[in-house]
């Protein structure tokens, strides 16, 4: 199932913003623990973890990015989220490369004094990460890779914030 995690380099944008693009597996529990411990003044931390689903017949998932666009876009999004809600901290980690069922794909965590800010910030960040950031996805089913097209649901999710 899930691959053992290896270290993922950090590119902190500012003290409380941690935005990373990882080419190797990462450990969401460890990342959340470190994030939480660094923010004892935050009353609440909301996180979203997306993982490669088991049981759909998908043998592997491959996420491709374009380096000159993907990380800058993630950092821009993180800045927007920080500007929109009163947060103590924001963590965005996204995998690229080949993954197997059970592997973490994305971890977003928002820490805030008030619960509602943390929920809204994490929700917004996920909607926009999925739809506006530069990842192209292939799935391997029955030994065959196929590219995944954009889903209408993502456009509807984005529309909620306009």
């Amino acid at each position, binding site marked *: 199932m899930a691959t053992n995690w290896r270290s993922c380099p950090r590119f902190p944008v500012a003290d409380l913003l941690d935005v990373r693009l990882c080419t190797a597996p990462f450990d969401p529990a460890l990342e959340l623990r470190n994030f939480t411990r660094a923010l004892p003044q935050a009353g609440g931390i909301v996180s979203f973890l997306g993982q490669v689903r088991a049981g759909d017949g998908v043998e592997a998932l491959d996420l491709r990015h374009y380096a*000159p666009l993907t990380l800058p876009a993630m950092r821009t999004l993180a800045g927007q989220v920080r500007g929109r809600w009163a947060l103590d901290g924001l963590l965005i980690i996204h995998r690229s490369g080949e993954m197997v069922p059970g592997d973490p794909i994305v971890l977003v965590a928002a820490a805030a004094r008030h619960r509602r800010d943390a929920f809204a910030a994490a929700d917004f960040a996920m909607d926009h990460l*999925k739809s*506006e950031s530069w990842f*192209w*996805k292939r799935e391997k089913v029955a030994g065959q890779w196929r*590219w995944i*097209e954009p889903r209408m649901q993502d456009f509807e999710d984005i529309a909620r914030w306009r």
Partner: protein
Amino acid sequence: MAARLVFLGRLEELAGCPFADVAFGAPLHWADVLAWLGDDQAPELPALVNSDKVRLALNGMMVTDKASLTVVDGDELAFLPPVSGG
């Protein structure tokens, strides 16, 4: 003079490679790029990358108007199909 063309997502499959280096004697305009793609890469590429669905990035900056594009020595031009949801 040379520039690199980068094919993302399913365009990589159509082009048959993740990127291609193109050599030229004078700066390339959009029509030159399309002609080169059709001749050297795949006949269906020009119409596809010319559509609104495929966006361009020149040296990491989004191109707002394809028609006014100019590619010079050392440039990297990326072809970006719609990103995958989910």
